[in-house]
Structure formats: C-alpha cells, structure tokens
C-alpha cells in the first residue's frame, strides 16, 4: 500500500483532467462525484497508507518514481517522502479537503461554473499533496507554485467582478515576493550544498555549516521569506484578507486550513537550517508574535464576517510561527492541525450563514440567527471555543503547548509568553464578538434566512465539530521527525502560569460579552472618543499596511513607469520605427500585385547574381 503513495496526487489530478477536458459539459451530479470522489479516494488511500506506515514503525519511507530531469549533477527525482510530518499534512489535506469538497457540492450548486470550480479545487489538492510529499525542494517548489496558481484562480473565481480579479492579482503578486526569495534560497542551497533533496541537504548543512554561519543565516532567511509570503505573516500578510473574495469553501480550504500553512510546513521541514541560525529562528518567533498581535487588533474591528476569520487565521498562523521560533516544532504542527479543523469549521459555518443571507457579509446586518441556523450556530460556538482555546477543546491543547514553549525560550521567553497571552485574550474578544453579533441579538436587515442546508453541507460541519472538539487528543507522530528539536524538555511552570493562560480567553469573552451582548459598555460612546475612533480606523485598515505599501512600492513604481513612457531610449526606438516605416513605404511601391513584375524582378536578380558570380 505504501508503494501506492503516488495515487494520492494522482486521483485529484485525474479529477482535474477529466473536469477540464470535458469543459463543463458534464452534468452537475457527475461533476460532484468526480470532484469530491477523487479527493475522497485520495483520503481513503492516505488513511490506509498511514495505517501501514505507523504499523511498520519505520521513521520514513521514500517512494522513488522517476528522475524528473537530469542536468549535470542536478537530478531532482520525482520521489515522494513520507514521514510523520508529511503524514500529518497529507491527512489534513485529504481529510479536511474531502469534507470541504463535500460541502462545496452543496454550497456551489447554483453556480454556473460548477465544473470549473471543482477542477481548480482538485488541481489544488494535487499540487498541495505534491508540496508536502515531495522529497526534494524542486518538487516542493512545483507544488508550492501549483497551489499559488490555484489560489489565484480561485480567489478570482467570480471574475466578472473586477475587484475579485484585483484581489487575485494582489495575492499572486504579494506571494510572488516571498516565492522569489525562496527561489533564491533554493539556488543558494544547491550551489552551496550540491543537492536539493531535503534530507541530504539537511545532513550536508549540519556537516558543512557551523552554528550561526552567514550562509546558514542567509539560507534560513530566504526560506523564511517564502514561508512568510505563503503564510501571510508580517510583512507580506496584506493579501490574505483580500483573498476572501473567493467562494467561502476556498477560504476554508486554501486560505485557512491548508495552503497558508505551507509556510509553517516549510519551516518545520527545514528546521535544521533554522537551528543552525538561531538569530533567524528568533526572528521567526518575533514575526509570529507581531503578526498575531497585529492581526488580533485588526480582527476586533472588522465588520465583514470572512475578513474577521481571515485576520484570525493570520493571527493563528502567527502562533504557529511563534512555536517554530521557540523551537517547538511539533507544537507548531499540532496547532496547524487543530487550526485546520476549527478554522475550516468556522469558515464553512460562515459560508452557511452567508448563503442563507444571500451573500451578505456584514455581521452587523446579521443577528439573531441562533434559531434559524442551529447547525451553523453550534458550529460557531464550538469553533470559536476552540479558536479561543477554551479548556478541553482542541485549540486549548495546541495553544497551551505553544505558550509553554515560548515561555521556555531563553532570553525573551517571558516577552513572547506575555504577547501570546495577550493574543489569546484578543482571540477571545473577536471570536465571541462574532458569535454574539451574528447569532444573538435582534435580527437585523430584511434578509429572509433560508432553511438549513442540504446533508452534503451539514455532514461536514458535524464531522468538523467533532474534530474541533476532540482533535486535541490526537497524537501526532512527530517525535522521529524532530528528534533533534530543542525546547522539548518538560518545563516546570507554576500553576499561576497555567491559570493566566486559561483565564486570558475567558477574560476576552467577558469583555466581548459586556460590549456586544449585554451592552453594559456602549460602543457608540467609545467611538465618540476621537482617539478610540482613530485607533479603530487604523486597526480596521489592517494597521494601514495597504496604504503604506501603496505609498512605498506601488506609487513609486507607477511614477517610474510614467516618466519612462517617453524617455530617450524610447525615442531611439521610435527612430528605428520611423526608418523601418519609410523603408517599408519605399518597398511597398515595388509590390505592384502583378505576377509578371515579380517574376521579372526575380529573373533580373538572377541575372545580376550570376553576373557577379561570373565576374568575380
């Protein structure tokens, strides 16, 4: 069964091909069967392969398929590498992916481009599997760019609206910045270490590079660039909120559960490099911390239900980076998994709400949906509880591990811990703000809520609810992968620490309750305060990052483009053009259209050439 690991990306790829080649001519039922079924089959094989892999007790398993290309010493193989890390990722991608596909068969049922949607989705799953299963960085990069492409296609899925196209382009361009850094990183690794096979490369790095050597720092930094771009961390986080323009299942699958965590996966996969560059690793931690705090502030102020979830995603991935920076690799991956569960749950539930309100996104136009949408309501309750890391939900276990690991970091450990706890407090506020505003209170607006959804949408929600609640009990088999990892010794921390960590989200929920449920504090009065108001606006705009980038990058570029429009070099080419033109006009007069004339010219030319040949 392990040998059949190539089946995993093959199933969705076949689904993609069959959907693309039939060009939308298949009936919806068959599209749904192909689209969801291919990922389902993939999940089934993933489960079987995992069972066999875990039973075998091996640390890793390599399936060599073929040599992709061979250029001198550069011979990346098309090989799949299975260990604990890729196993977890593979199960998340196919499992959560399958549930989201199933959900989409109901969610997208009225969309005219049903077949195209599933084609892109299947392509995405195939590419993502390639990313996590590839045994070398080139294959990983193929999957990396593949998911980027799918992300672009799916954000701009409703391309009739130019804004969506703009959001898609933005996502593409911003992540490209990170991807470029990553590509340079790959070049550096290859030239320095002579291989791109991940395991060989890591071994070589350990042997050749000293701790904190400049090369290791450069390589880690460049890879971090790629990770930051893909995972929407500071300073490349601006694309993710806009990416919510795509259909909601896309946001659930790509922009919450799987693709955006690819950065976490990359760092975890190449953790040896980061251990060789402790400063960069510290940078990772601080990037995560800054991102989680920033996104937390912003999430509190948003009005769009999907944007709130998007910022919370950024914030949660911030936690993962924090864990990575703290050297708690398995905690990061663990949080990645639980986050995939509860964030997918939240997005899908949000999708149900949005669909029932005819694509209304503004939470303040919702309200009182508790009775009308019970499944969505309970999904939100459980999802938000897990998001806020309330005890005994899945998020609690993973976030707990992260914060403890952060505390154990030598040096700025306390700082990291405090930041993380503050982030948890914010998480409580914004997650339950969403619940209180949407599901309690008065029904706002004129929207008539639709009936609860079809089983294909309800069943994934149920399953994800179970996973979001109980996912914390899953043991991730990561010990073999991160055996070298630091920060693994059991930290003995005081009860106070635990109490603070448990209390923080509850505190946040309480604040949220006072503001949005019981209205003890009046929000309008607070907004009347100019300082609070301007702060709110600042946070609402995502700390003004978009405007900043517009000033720093976009405007200067446009300015340069404008002044370049009529420069000296252009006039040189214009001269060339005019010379060509006049020559053309001259030659055009010889084009009389008379065959005899052409033949005569040819004959005359022949005579001339032969004369030259004879004379010389």
């Amino acid at each position, binding site marked *: 069964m392990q040998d059949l690991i190539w089946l995993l990306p093959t199933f969705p790829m076949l689904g993609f091909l069959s959907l693309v080649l039939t060009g939308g001519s298949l009936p919806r039922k068959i599209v749904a069967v192909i689209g969801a079924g291919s990922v389902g089959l993939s999940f089934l094989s993933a489960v079987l392969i995992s069972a066999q892999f875990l039973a075998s007790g091996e640390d890793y398993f390599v399936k060599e398929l073929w040599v992709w290309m061979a250029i001198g010493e550069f011979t990346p193989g098309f090989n799949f590498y299975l260990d604990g890390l890729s196993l977890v990722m593979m199960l998340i991608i196919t499992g959560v992916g399958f549930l989201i596909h199933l959900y989409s068969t109901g969610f997208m049922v009225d969309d005219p481009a049903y077949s195209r949607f599933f084609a892109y989705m299947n392509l995405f799953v195939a590419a993502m599997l390639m990313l996590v299963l590839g045994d070398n960085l080139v294959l990983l990069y193929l999957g990396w760019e593949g998911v980027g492409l799918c992300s672009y296609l799916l954000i701009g899925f409703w391309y009739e609206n130019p804004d969506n196209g703009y959001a898609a382009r933005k996502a593409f361009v911003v992540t490209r910045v990170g991807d470029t850094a990553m590509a340079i990183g790959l070049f550096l690794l290859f030239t320095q270490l002579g291989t791109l096979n991940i395991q060989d490369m890591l071994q070589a790095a350990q042997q050749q590079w000293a701790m904190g050597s400049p090369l290791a720092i450069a390589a880690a930094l460049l890879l971090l660039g790629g990770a930051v771009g893909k995972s929407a961390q500071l300073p490349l986080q601006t694309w993710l909120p806009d990416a919510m323009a795509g259909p909601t299942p896309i946001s659930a699958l790509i922009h919450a559960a799987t693709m955006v965590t690819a950065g976490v996966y990359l760092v975890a996969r190449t953790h040896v490099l980061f251990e060789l560059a402790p400063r960069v690793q510290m940078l990772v931690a601080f990037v995560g911390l800054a991102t989680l705090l920033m996104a937390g502030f912003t999430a509190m102020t948003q009005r769009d239900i999907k944007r709130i979830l998007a910022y919370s995603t950024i914030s949660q991935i911030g936690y993962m980076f924090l864990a990575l920076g703290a050297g708690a690799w398995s905690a990061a991956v663990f949080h990645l998994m639980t986050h995939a569960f509860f964030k997918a749950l939240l997005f899908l539930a949000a999708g149900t709400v949005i669909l029932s309100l005819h694509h209304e996104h503004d939470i303040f136009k919702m309200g009182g949906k508790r009775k009308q949408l019970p499944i969505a309501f309970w999904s939100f309750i459980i999802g938000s509880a897990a998001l806020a890391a309330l005890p005994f939900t899945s998020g609690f276990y993973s976030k707990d591990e992260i914060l403890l690991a952060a505390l154990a970091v030598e040096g700025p450990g306390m700082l990291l811990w405090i930041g993380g706890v503050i982030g948890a407090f914010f998480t409580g506020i914004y997650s339950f703000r969403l619940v209180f505003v949407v599901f309690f209170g008065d029904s706002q607006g004129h929207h008539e809520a639709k009936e609860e959804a079809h089983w294909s949408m309800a069943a994934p929600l149920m399953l994800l609810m179970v996973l979001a609640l109980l996912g914390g009990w899953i043991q991730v088999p990561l010990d073999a992968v991160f055996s070298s990892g630091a920060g693994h010794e059991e930290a003995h921390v005081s009860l106070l620490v635990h109490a603070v960590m448990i209390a923080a989200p509850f505190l946040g929920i309480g604040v949220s309750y006072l503001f949005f449920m019981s209205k003890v504090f009046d929000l309008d009065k607070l907004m009347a305060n100019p300082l609070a108001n301007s702060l709110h606006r600042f946070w609402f705009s995502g700390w003004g990052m978009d405007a900043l980038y517009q000033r720093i990058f976009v405007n200067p570029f446009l300015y340069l483009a404008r002044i370049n429009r009529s420069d000296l070099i252009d006039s040189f080419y214009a001269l060339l053009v005019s010379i060509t033109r006049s020559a053309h006009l001259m030659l055009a007069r010889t084009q009389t*259209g008379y065959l005899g004339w052409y033949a005569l010219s040819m004959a005359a030319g022949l005579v001339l050439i032969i004369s030259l040949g004879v004379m010389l």
Partner: protein
Amino acid sequence: MQSIPIEHGLILAGILFALGLVGVLTRRNIVFVLMSLEVMLNASGLAFVVASARWGHADGQVMFLMILTLAAAEVAVGLGLIIQMYRKFKTVDIDVLSEMKG
C-alpha cells in the same frame, strides 16, 4: 554507341529554361503561365538527369523523380486555384489579381 558532350545536354536545359522564363514573363493568361512554369521545371529536371548521366549514378534520376512529384502537386494545387479564380473573376487574366499591392 557514340558519346554526347555533357555541355550540350546542359545547354539544352538552359535553352528550355530560358524559353520557359520568357513564357512566364510575357503571358497574361494564367494557364499559360503555369504551363511555362512546367517547362522551366522540366528543364531543371533535365539538368539533373544530364548530371546523373555524366557520373553514371542514379542520384540525379532520383532528384528528377522528386521534381516530378513536386510538379504533380504544384499543378494540382495550381489548377485548383485557377478554377477558383475563374469562378470568382470570370477571367484567366493574371493581372486582374493585383489587389494585394503596396
């Protein structure tokens, strides 16, 4: 068996070629033009065969066969074009087809 000077064969080819050229250049009826073209093609084939005879090899004859094939394809397409032209313009005057100028 008496011998034939090779240059006489080549001169014959040259004369035929020149005559065909005159035909191509002077005639306005497209069928005549095509026929003169055949003369030129045939003359070039003749040169190949003469060369083949000069060296006692069959290569020149093979080349002539290729020219023959070419001529067959060319004539088929050319005559198809003539029929089209006659349908469209009701004439075989090649100079009527001078729209593509400049």
